[in-house]
Every structure is written in structure tokens, then in C-alpha cells.
């Protein structure tokens, strides 16, 4: 019981930190820190998405950059067409309205994830890792070689997309918007984890034979989890493109997939606030050490090594103790 309440405490602390820093930064006129916090929130959301597949389902997808990037391209393509006053392919009207863009990004990612998942989930272990990577690389090279939307150079978003009743061009409102979406993602994760679906999904990770022996085929459960996971990561991608006002194939690359996995391992896999803890440490490291040396990832690697060797529960496990199941 104490471990549970301690985890709640640590989680609350993380959220308070995430909110307090950009608000304080805005008050003292340092908008850069707001952008940093927004980056944390968005990367955390992307990792919350992956955490559904990886943390709950044990599906180590090394291809989630595909969904992150696709979400980003949806935002970029909508913005470009709206800016140029052209309709989208299939006669869809271009819009800069974020809710429409988010839904489109999630729908696209869900649709792409279904065939990728259906094929990949016929394998497991290292083959699953490799096949998800292969699919993501296919999409990456497609984006690189497709000139209509910038190809290798990427696509600029000249004006950040809009959200009703909010000035998204200002750093703080945009941060708060991203924070709101992150919180919604966290609520969704927690609901799924405690639900019948989550029970079946976690059972499929712990012992797929047991799941089949009560009459639930693991494949369908995993496929749906993979798609939902892709949708959340895709939503984060759309937010990320709007944050940078730029989307390029690098969002689709395997480095990005690896980064998302690192965030989860760093923070604590399968745990509600693991991705946020991981994203905070990652981004702060990138900022603090990145200013001193270009080789900051070497030091991140050392920390990751420490976590993997000595704190399997990640940073949350270290701070809040072992995870307990009901």
C-alpha cells in the first residue's frame, strides 16, 4: 500500500514540476523553457502511446517512429494545403483546426497500424522488433523520396495550426494545450490498464498460453493494443510537428523509435508516469549536457546502463518502489 501511495506522490510531483517550470519561466520572460516543457509533454505522450504496446502488452515495437512521423506529416500536410488554399487529396477540405488534424492523424495511424500489426504479430521476440523496424524504415524511405511534401528536406508549417479559443502561437497556451492532451493520454492509459481489455493484454504479456487457455486468443488483443498505441503516438507526432513548425523524415527514422523505447525504459515500463519521468530526464539531459558537449548521449547511455542493470523498474521504480498489481 505504501508503495502505491508513494508512486502517486512521485507522479503528482512530476506533474507539478512540469506545470510549474513553464509558468514560472513565462513570468520571468524566458519562453525557451516553455518550449522545453512542451517538448517533454509531447515526447511523454508519444511514449505513453508506446507504453500501451510495450509496457502493458510486452510488444517491443521498434517502429513507432512511423506513427509519430505520420502524425507529424498529417499536421504538416494539412497546414501546407490550408496555407496555399488547396484542397487535400480525395477532395478533403484542408483546415488548420487541430481537433480535425488530431482525429485525422489518429485515424490514419490506426489504419496503418492494423496491417503492420497483423503481419508483425505473427512473429515475436527479436523478429517482432525487426519487422516493426522494417515497416517503419519503408515509410521513412517513402517520405525521403516523395518530393511533393519536401522529401528529404522536410515540410515547414508557416503558421502553427489553430485550436478554438486558444492562441496557439504563444508558447504558454500551446504548452497548456499539449499538457491537457498528455493528461488525457495518461487517463486513457490508466483506464485501459484497469479494464477487461487491459487485463487480457497484460495476461498476454505474462503468459499468452494462459490467456488462450481461458478462451481468449492473444492475437486480437495484441492487434487492437498495437493500433491504439499507434494512434496515441500519432497524436503526439501531430503536436510535435506543430511545436517545431516543421516535419521531416527524421521524425520517422529508427533513431526516433529507439528514443521512445529509451524514454520508457528510463522512466519505468508499464507504469503510468514512466514515460513522463523518462521524457523529463531525457530532455533535461539533452539540454543541460547538450550545451556542454555534443556527446551528451554518451552520458545518457551510462544512465540507461545503470537503470537496466540496477533499477529494472526505471526511475519510477527507484523513487516509488516495485509496481504492484491488483
Amino acid at each position, binding site marked *: 500500500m505504501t508503495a502505491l501511495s508513494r508512486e502517486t506522490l512521485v507522479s503528482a510531483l512530476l506533474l507539478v514540476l512540469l506545470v510549474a517550470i513553464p509558468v514560472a519561466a513565462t513570468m520571468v520572460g524566458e519562453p525557451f523553457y516553455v518550449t522545453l516543457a512542451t517538448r517533454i509533454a509531447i515526447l511523454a505522450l508519444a511514449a505513453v502511446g508506446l507504453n500501451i504496446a510495450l509496457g502493458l502488452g510486452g510488444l517491443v515495437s521498434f517502429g513507432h517512429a512511423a506513427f509519430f512521423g505520420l502524425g507529424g506529416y498529417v499536421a504538416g500536410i494539412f497546414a501546407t494545403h490550408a496555407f496555399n488554399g488547396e484542397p487535400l487529396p480525395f477532395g478533403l477540405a484542408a483546415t488548420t483546426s487541430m481537433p480535425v488534424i488530431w482525429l485525422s492523424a489518429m485515424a490514419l495511424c490506426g489504419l496503418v497500424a492494423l496491417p503492420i500489426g497483423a503481419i508483425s504479430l505473427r512473429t515475436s521476440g527479436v523478429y517482432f522488433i525487426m519487422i516493426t523496424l522494417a515497416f517503419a524504415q519503408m515509410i521513412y524511405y517513402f517520405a525521403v523520396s516523395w518530393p511533393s511534401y519536401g522529401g528529404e528536406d522536410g515540410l515547414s508549417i508557416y503558421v502553427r495550426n489553430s485550436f478554438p479559443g486558444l492562441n496557439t502561437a504563444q508558447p504558454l497556451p500551446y504548452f497548456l494545450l499539449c499538457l491537457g492532451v498528455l493528461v488525457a493520454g495518461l487517463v486513457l492509459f490508466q*483506464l*485501459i490498464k*484497469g*479494464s*477487461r*481489455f*487491459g*487485463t*487480457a493484454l*497484460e*495476461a498476454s504479456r*505474462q*503468459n499468452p*498460453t*494462459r*490467456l*488462450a*487457455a*481461458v*478462451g*481468449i*486468443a*492473444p492475437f486480437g*488483443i495484441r492487434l*487492437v493494443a498495437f493500433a491504439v498505441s499507434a494512434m496515441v503516438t500519432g497524436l503526439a507526432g501531430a503536436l510535435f510537428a506543430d511545436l517545431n513548425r516543421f516535419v521531416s523524415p527524421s521524425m520517422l527514422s529508427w533513431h526516433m523509435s529507439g528514443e521512445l523505447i529509451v524514454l520508457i525504459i528510463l522512466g519505468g515500463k508499464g507504469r503510468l508516469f514512466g514515460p513522463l519521468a523518462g521524457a523529463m530526464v531525457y530532455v533535461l539531459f539533452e539540454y543541460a549536457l547538450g550545451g556542454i558537449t555534443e556527446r551528451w548521449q554518451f552520458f545518457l547511455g551510462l544512465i540507461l546502463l545503470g537503470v537496466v542493470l540496477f533499477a529494472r523498474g526505471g526511475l519510477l521504480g527507484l523513487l516509488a518502489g516495485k509496481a504492484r*498489481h*491488483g
Partner: protein
Amino acid sequence: MAEPVLQLSDLRKSFGALKATDGVSLDLRGGEIHALIGPNGAGKSTLIHQICGSIRPDSGTIRFLGEDMAGLDMAARVRRGLGRSFQISSLAPEFSALRNVMLAVQARQGSSFRFLRPVASDGSLTGPAMTMLERVGLEARAKVPAAELSHGERRQLEIAIALALGPKAFLFDEPMAGLGPEGSKRLTGFLDGLRHEAPILLVEHDMDAVFALADRISVLVYGRIIATGTVAEIRSDPEVRRAYLGDAA
């Protein structure tokens, strides 16, 4: 006589030159305990795997409640009413005993694609699950993760999960394994009453339990059923004595 619940007809399965299942025909009738015995390497596990759907037979048919099971995977067979336990306990180790049983209750209700309602406060899951734990005498350990249960408790939990499925037939693969005399005796008493809920195909090495429980016994040796009959018939069958029972009978 009514049609048997489970019927294997001329089942064959080879691994290379080894005939693991060599023309096995066997049936399980309503209300009975049918024990399957045989020395190590006789092909009992291979046979169980074929009934459950994790190994596909080379030829022959398996009919369950009149339906041909060919092409159905394990989950589909379980949904049709085949409840099984494993030779080596197979549980979700991180889940509590209660949640392991709740998983079976939820599967029986046929509704695993529900994403929002928390299971912990869902009385339609916790209620029946707790009842099953009480039936096997595990209610005091409901909150303990399966990984922290003793060997005997895990065997009990396996049975509770199978019960929660409300199956039309039970398939118990060495449920007494590693239980010790006291535990075996208790489980024997429990299974004795269970046959009235659903017939049991019992694979077991514990001969005391088999002789106490079985309505019929089939003896499997080198992939073939060499004898099927009542306890008395099997005890006195000279071929069985030679092949298997030795001095134990």
C-alpha cells in the same frame, strides 16, 4: 446411450519415425472420470496437445459435443467448453490469485474488448472469481500474486481457473503432480464430486488417485491404447501389468 462429450477417432501423429500417437480412439462420456495412464514417453502429452489444439494431428478426428475440432485453435476450443489445467502450472504470475480467476470469468462472459470500466470494482467479475477460490480453499490467498503462491496453491489456482470457465468437459493434466499425500487426498475428494458438473479426462501418475476416481481407465503405451476398461478390468489385464503396472498393482 447418448453421444460422448469428447470423442477421438483413429488419431495419428508422428515426429519423424516416432509414432507419438498411433491410432488412438478414446471417448469421454457424460458424468464420468476417464483416466489416461501410461509410462513416461507413452505420448500422453502429445495426445493432450492435440485435444487442446496446440498440436495438429496427422490424421483422425477429434469431436467435442458433436463438433469436429479440426482447424480450431486452443482459445476457440476453450470457448466451446473445454476447460483444461496444465501439467506445469501456467498462470499470469504478476496478477493476484483473484485476478487470475477474474480473467477466466471475463473470458466466459465473452467481453474482453471493454476499455474503460475498471475490473477491480466490477462485482460481476470479482464475485464469481471469489466463489471459485472458495471452492478450492484459496480465498485467504486471493490478493497474493500468483508468483508468490506455493506449488500446491498454484495447482489449486489452476483448478479454480478451470472451474470459472464453466466448461462442458475438464481436461486435467497431472493435477496431483508434486502435491504430496495430504494434498493429493484432498484434491481426490474434490475431483470425485466434480464429475457431476462435467466429465473429466484425467491424465495422472498417482495410481491411488486414479484407482479411487476413475470410472474407466485407458492405458497408453508407445502411442497406442492397449486397454480400456474399469478399474478392476485394468488391474487384472495381463498385458497392462506387463507393460506398465508391474508390482504396483
